[in-house]
């Protein structure tokens, strides 16, 4: 009786649930994944849906126009029931997403999980970092306070420095010669449609490639595995619950402010981007803009193609590992030191 109902209904809804369940829940997870260090990649994967949900909620109240953007953010933060909380979660989840992607990248780098045949997934991951930083940039530009307005002006001006097509790109991005109504609607469309869709596609590719290869096994762990469900699922649920609590806590004790309303004829004395752009921002203060952007572009290319460059370092495996450890440590230290200098000297 039960079987026949199932058979009958699967005629109407011709999808094999058990096959999908097997793919989703019976993945073999290597035992090293029991260490929390390896749960870093799950974090942005949980934070992204939280951003979608809270972002959707904010979109019910936010109005992307120069006259009303700031006022609607103020309205959300001060008038709407739990508005400060939803906005706070959206703000903090964006920050945590950047942090967790950095940490995940560091884990992948130092366990050399990008090595053949996983070079492509390293590149997909890096594209996800780029998209996340872009969506953060377009996001905080929407609040239309002094800092976000001038960050949008300075940030989009950098696009103008791209050789040959810079000015065209700048005009496309701003929808005019200055940051204004068209810029706001463009940033809004990018922030709520284009970038989330691109990120969703990239996450799907990232996970499909990951599942295709199987999770890379670092040295020094037994070659055993366990089912995704329930053991690993517990871990993901616990990470999710921890993140929700942390976000709620941050939203309550460190709520984002609304700042001063954007004034296009008045640049404030101290302008700074969000902290994750500090290192680049500081570097660009030291060198001429075109030289700086050239070097930043070069560094990005080296990181993107690192899985292909690393084998060229040395033929000896131990030497390769040593050099990439050193280079990685220097890069991370530089990033941290630059960020700290910018934090404490401005």
């Amino acid at each position, binding site marked *: 009786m039960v079987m026949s109902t199932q058979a009958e209904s699967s005629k109407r809804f011709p999808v094999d649930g058990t096959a999908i369940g097997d793919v989703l829940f019976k993945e073999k997870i290597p035992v090293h994944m029991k260490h929390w260090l390896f749960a870093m990649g799950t974090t942005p994967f949980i934070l992204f849906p939280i951003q979608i949900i809270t972002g959707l909620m904010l979109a019910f109240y936010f109005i992307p126009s120069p006259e009303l953007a700031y006022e609607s953010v103020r309205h959300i933060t001060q*008038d709407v*029931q*739990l508005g400060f909380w939803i906005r706070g979660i959206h703000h903090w989840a964006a920050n945590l997403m950047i942090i967790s992607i950095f940490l995940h990248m560091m884990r992948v780098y130092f366990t050399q999980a990008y090595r053949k045949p996983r070079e492509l997934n390293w590149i997909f991951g890096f594209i996800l970092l780029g998209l996340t930083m872009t969506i953060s940039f377009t996001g905080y530009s929407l609040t239309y306070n002094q800092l976000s307005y001038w960050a949008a002006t300075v940030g989009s001006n950098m696009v103008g420095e791209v050789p040959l097509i810079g000015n065209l790109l700048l005009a496309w991005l701003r929808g005019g010669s200055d940051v204004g109504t068209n810029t706001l609607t463009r940033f809004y469309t990018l922030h709520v449609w284009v970038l989330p869709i691109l990120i969703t596609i990239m996450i799907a590719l990232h996970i499909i490639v990951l599942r295709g290869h199987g999770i890379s096994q670092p040295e020094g762990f037994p070659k055993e595995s366990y089912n995704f469900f329930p053991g690993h699922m*517990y871990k993901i*649920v616990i990470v*999710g*619950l921890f993140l929700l609590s942390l976000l709620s806590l941050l939203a309550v004790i460190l709520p984002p402010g609304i700042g001063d309303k954007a004034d296009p004829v008045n640049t404030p004395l101290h302008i700074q981007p969000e902290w994750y752009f500090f290192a680049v921002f500081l570097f660009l203060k030291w060198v001429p803009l075109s030289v700086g952007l050239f070097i930043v572009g070069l560094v990005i290319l080296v990181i993107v193609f690192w899985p292909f460059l690393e084998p060229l370092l040395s033929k000896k495996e131990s030497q390769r590992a040593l050099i990439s450890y050193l280079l990685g440590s220097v890069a991370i230290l530089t990033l941290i030191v630059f960020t700290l200098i910018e934090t404490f000297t401005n």
Partner: protein
Amino acid sequence: METDQAEKRTRREFLRRMGVFGALILAMGAFLRQLLVFFSPSMKKTPTHKFLVAKVDEVPLGQAKEITIQGKPVFVVHLESGFKVFSGVCTHLGCIVKWEPNNDRFYCPCHKGVFNREGDVMEGPPPRPLDEFVVELDENLVFIQVADKRKGPWS
């Protein structure tokens, strides 16, 4: 694979599963509740209180009577068009205005702000007219609606 399904579900495993997924369901429920609250527009009306401020025959036409409500001065003005009630707090920087019957005006001594008996700014720095209360006439009595002050422990 077969052994997994055949594996006897122990009490410990059952409790663990209930704990983890129970917490998840609770958290999602609480989160959903917050989303609903955020989505619902606030329908709360500011609670107001009716205050008796004057008797109609007590204030001659063109004159004002000063009283104090909740520690702040309030002026009841009798105009041709009826009664108007203004807050006595100057809209410039919060000093208390005076009614000058001979000059037919409200005068703020701090920065020489001048308002006419309709509450409009005539001279000086005040950015907007005097704040006005909602007036209700009930036969011979003049009432105003005053928003209740709600004081939390932190305000």
